[in-house]
């Protein structure tokens, strides 16, 4: 057992943290106020990240990435978690599902995404298909050798900046003893493709400036060349590539919780009531003790998940535990910090109210807490036939 970071990892952590402190923090208030990341600012952050060799650092070296291990990449995500998600989006981490690109798809999608020439967005969720992915209505039917797509997607993060989309679409139905079961295929769709439109989405209280969009398909014709992976093999690519991305949510939560925690400690030590620092009251100091205990626990759970991935060990259950615990931990830490700040915590003079709002979505996206508990318990009971 070795719990320390290597010298390289220490340097990765300190570089990304300095980057976030110097290049992200100064712009957070404006993004929060306007709900917009100015185009020029996004490009500037992206270029700096490319110059530093951190862009697409989650991709292997043979496609132009930095080839970071899961552990290294999780540390990067953890430090990025401190900053505004709307801004750190430009510290590009394309969807690793793009590694499933084959033939011309590599030149057209994978390699430009790794270089930072084209940005991607992933689309799965629909108004009637949240946790129930297979309930999706967006469907493609065969017509003249192509696929004709109709339907819509919503809550699509990163869509406003995306040049192309990785979209999961129903391509048929199988009759099974348990009832009809949809077949899913993953498609690559270019912005501006006829019949495909990106529209403004809803206003979320979490992560202002990190917009969600609605995608609509109206008799959108896609050739077979746009299929990522195999026809009807959407679940296979999803399972191969997407479960590890839940770990990035856990890492985000740990990084964000540490930033929030620093505010809590400092405020508790400075703020005086009844003639002394409020940290002198056990009602406050014990809350701080609980917070750091929970943050550390979530941190180790997250890093252990990354370590398992690097060892090639099964990690599905462990990653679900990390995502579940880290996101729920962040909710408690931001809420407790707000309580320590009292009324001031609700005012936008401090970032606490923002951390608190941002935290709320972490228990919902990339698999709700309930879905994570389902994954964890299923792994425990399946071998027992229960």
């Amino acid at each position, binding site marked *: 057992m070795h719990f320390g970071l290597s*010298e*390289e990892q*220490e*340097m*990765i952590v*300190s*570089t990304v943290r*300095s*980057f976030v402190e110097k290049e992200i923090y100064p712009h957070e208030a404006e993004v929060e106020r306007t709900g917009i990341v100015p185009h020029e600012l996004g490009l500037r952050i992206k270029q700096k990240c490319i*110059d*530093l*060799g*951190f862009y697409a*650092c989650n991709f292997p070296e043979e496609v132009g990435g*930095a080839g*970071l291990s899961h552990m290294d990449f999780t540390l990067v995500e953890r430090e990025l978690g401190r900053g505004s998600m709307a801004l750190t989006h430009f510290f590009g981490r394309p969807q690793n599902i793009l590694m499933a690109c084959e033939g011309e798809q590599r030149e057209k999608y994978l390699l430009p995404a790794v270089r930072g020439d084209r940005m991607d967005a992933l689309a799965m969720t629909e108004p009637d298909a949240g946790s129930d992915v297979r309930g999706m209505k967006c469907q493609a039917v065969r017509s003249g050798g192509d696929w004709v797509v109709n339907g819509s997607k919503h809550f699509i993060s990163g869509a406003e900046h995306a040049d192309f989309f990785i979209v999961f679409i129903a391509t048929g139905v199988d009759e099974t003893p348990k009832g009809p079961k949809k077949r899913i295929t993953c498609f690559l769709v270019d912005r501006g493709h006829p019949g495909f439109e990106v529209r403004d989405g809803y206003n979320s209280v979490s992560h202002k400036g990190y917009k969600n969009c609605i995608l609509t398909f109206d008799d959108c014709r896609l050739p077979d060349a746009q299929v990522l992976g195999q026809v009807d093999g959407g679940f296979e690519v999803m399972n191969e590539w997407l479960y590890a991305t839940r770990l990035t949510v856990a890492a985000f939560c740990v990084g964000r919780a540490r930033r929030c925690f620093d505010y809590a400690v400092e405020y508790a030590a400075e703020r005086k009531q009844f003639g002394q620092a409020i940290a002198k009251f056990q009602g406050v100091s014990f809350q701080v003790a609980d917070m750091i205990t929970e943050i550390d626990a979530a941190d180790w759970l997250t890093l252990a998940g990354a370590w398992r991935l690097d060892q090639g060990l099964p990690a599905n259950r462990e990653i679900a535990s990390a995502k579940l615990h880290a996101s729920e931990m962040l909710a408690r830490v931001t809420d407790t910090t707000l309580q320590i700040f009292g009324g001031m915590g609700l005012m936008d003079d401090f970032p606490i109210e923002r951390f608190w709002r941002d935290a709320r979505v972490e228990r919902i996206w990339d698999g709700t807490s309930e879905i994570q508990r389902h994954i964890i318990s299923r792994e425990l009971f399946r071998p027992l036939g229960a």
Partner: protein
Amino acid sequence: MKVLVPVKRVIDYNVKVRVKADGSGVDLANVKMSMNPFDEIAVEEAIRLKEAGKATEVVAVSIGVKQNQETLRTALAMGADRAILVVAADDVHTDIEPLAVAKILAAIVKEEEPGLVLAGKQAIDNDMNATGQMLSALLGWSQGTFASEVDIDGDNAKVTREVDGGLQTITVKMPTIITVDLRLNEPRYASLPNIMKAKRKPLDEKTPGDYGVDVTPRLTVVKTEEPAARAAGIKVGSVDELVAKLKEAGAV
């Protein structure tokens, strides 16, 4: 031309320092340590000289505890070519005094024969501001301190110095020692490829004995104490009252 850059491991500038209970110094146990910010500027300048084709090699040196290796790795990740670590203490609380540091550096300069030593003007932990000047005296080299601009041109270096009245520009003969000030440049982030390469760059480990230098302290720390807390302010009702109060305090 080879450039030698001494770098010191100091308490991170973001850390709120705490005086040890016995007043013998500042508590450094389990505290985040980083490269002295002025030294970071010196490393940056050396790398820029190399990129401009004016320097051929950048050698970083650190004198202190074994953990200074991390500080050197940071210099290597920024772009220094190799590093020399002189392990002169076991305890992180041991501060090697400027004269001992300068003597070790002088010995390294004789061995390495750099054309330029670029150092931070001072370390942010004890603000001695002495090592560069002492090294200049020991070597009999010219010196340009508090540099905010450096222009190396053949046998001469033009150094713009930040002095009390403004900027002073001097020309010094090479080889020389330049100590750098805050506004010389903005140090770069270590790039990811360079971080990965840093481990493979050579790092030699030495001891003060290798250079025949005795690092026994010559100074005695009598007492270390926190700065006095600032007294609370008062609110005044009007400009007249403010002026009256200032006059009372002898401020105007």
